[in-house]
């Protein structure tokens, strides 16, 4: 049985608010590349009026990225999320989600990590209850990707 905490079990994610207008994503990407930061994963949630872009960067790039985005007048926030490591086979992700669902935890959003030198699939999950999720995942020995692993990708 593993014991995860937010420090050991989570990775950092940056969320950015974008207006639903042509060019806003480009502009944001320009700010990030201008800061010399490489994106490891990206997911866009869109509504009819606005979008939320979620980014994963190396741990040592987080503060630099946030500062650059804010300096460019964008609203950006850092959050802790869970990155699951599951075997690359049908049903593997679903089995982990079953554990969370059984504990009454819902998933706000999820996306997959594109860049991985590992055999396994990496999935980023934003559960409704972070602490409880870490407890459930730990007690079921579900492997998680740590911030240190992300930084080494």
């Amino acid at each position, binding site marked *: 049985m593993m014991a995860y905490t937010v420090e050991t079990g989570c990775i950092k994610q940056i969320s950015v*608010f974008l*207006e639903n207008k042509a060019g806003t994503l480009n502009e944001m990407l320009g700010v990030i590349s201008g800061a010399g930061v490489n994106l490891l994963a990206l997911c866009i949630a869109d509504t009819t*009026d606005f979008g*939320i872009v979620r980014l994963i960067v190396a741990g040592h790039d987080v503060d630099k990225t946030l500062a650059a985005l804010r300096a460019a*007048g*964008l*609203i950006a*926030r850092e959050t802790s999320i869970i990155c699951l490591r599951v075997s690359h086979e049908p049903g593997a992700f679903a089995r982990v989600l079953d554990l969370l669902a059984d504990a009454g935890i819902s998933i*706000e959003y999820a996306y997959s990590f594109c860049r991985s030198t590992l055999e396994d699939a990496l999935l980023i999950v934003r559960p409704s209850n972070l602490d409880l999720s870490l407890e459930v995942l730990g007690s079921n020995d579900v492997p998680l990707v740590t911030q240190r692993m992300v930084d080494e990708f």
Partner: protein
Amino acid sequence: MIYQPEIECMDRESMRELQGKRLVETVAWEYANVPLYRARMDEAGVKPQDIKGIDDLSKLPFTEKTDLRDEFPFGLLAAPRSEIVRIQGSSGTTGHPIVAGYTRGDVAVWQQMVARAMSAAGVTKDDIVQVAYGYGLFTGGLGAHQGATELGAMVIPMSAGNTQRQLMMMKELGTTVLCCTPSYAIYLGETAREMGLKPGVDLHLKSGCFGAEPWTEEMRQKLESLFEFDALDIYGLTEIAGPGVAFECMEKHGMHVNEDHVIVEVIDPKTGEQLPAGTPGELVFTTITKKGQPMIRYRTHDICTLDDSPCACGRSAIRMSRITGRTDDMLVIRGVNVFPSQIEGVLVGIEGVSPHYQLEVDRVNSTDTLAVNVELTEDMFSDTVSSVEAVRRKIAEQIKSVVGISAKINLVPPKSIPRSEGKAKRVIDKRNLH
């Protein structure tokens, strides 16, 4: 048709005499019963006995909309509370509404004013009048209802909204007169066309009385071509009575003021000096027959021009032009008075919400739309769509509850709303109403 020719066609000199006599009575009544106005007259050094006729009107201090807010709800009542049979209301400049109390006699006076307006639109006891103004605190619904009832017409009290049902009743019952806001009338007309309802075949409207919001000659032409009838303007405000304070006749060239019940002035909004007919300025009304909550020299902040030339219809009453603007920043959106300060009050009251905002008013498919652009702050933002939507919903709900109309909330990036050097450009009105 002229409902009360003995009054509506009275020669100007006799009318001024009648107004003077009623003004003297009103000032005495107000001074005796309303502490705020008594104090204001004392401050100005004017006693009721100084007011001997209409020429003394300009000696009297003004009443402001803020007085109705400060004395809310009953501070301006001049009649005992037990004599008040009705309350109507509209929005104030900030949080809570303003209200007006009516005695039985005040309701009758108001009803008579609307009856004259409807009679000018050709309404008789043989007509079927569909009232599609909202019923409630808003004076539109009940005002039109009472006026049509006084004339003995058959009233269909539809209230606002439910367009398909409005048109079904209009067709099935054979409505001949429509009363609602002009923008809603256009919407009804366009929907009727889409449904294949033809004037003269399915619909038999002969006229309509449209008010509660400013409209234009272009809108009149559009309405008249949609329904093939006469579209007439009717003006009023809750503080004075409600709709019917002034109304258009079939000449469609200015609105006749019901001068035996209200005295109209146009003043220079800066100096307060009376301006002659023909010069645009701020409209000021004095009620001279009201007992419940009389208003002496009430500043409307509406800008218009008076015309005292004779009208071909035979009425002698002075005419006021369409409202061509405001001296303050009040907007009329779907017939509801909206002050930007009300919206600002809502925004500063919600934690984490930026007070930087901009209102965008437009008219889409003949219906006014209000969008409120609010700058997002980091406190309002999180990584989930649901939480950002919750912020939007909260702002929209509070605006709806305070202002009374639905607004679309657009969250925009910080500092994206222009900050000008002087007065911030808070309102973008794309409707082109004047």
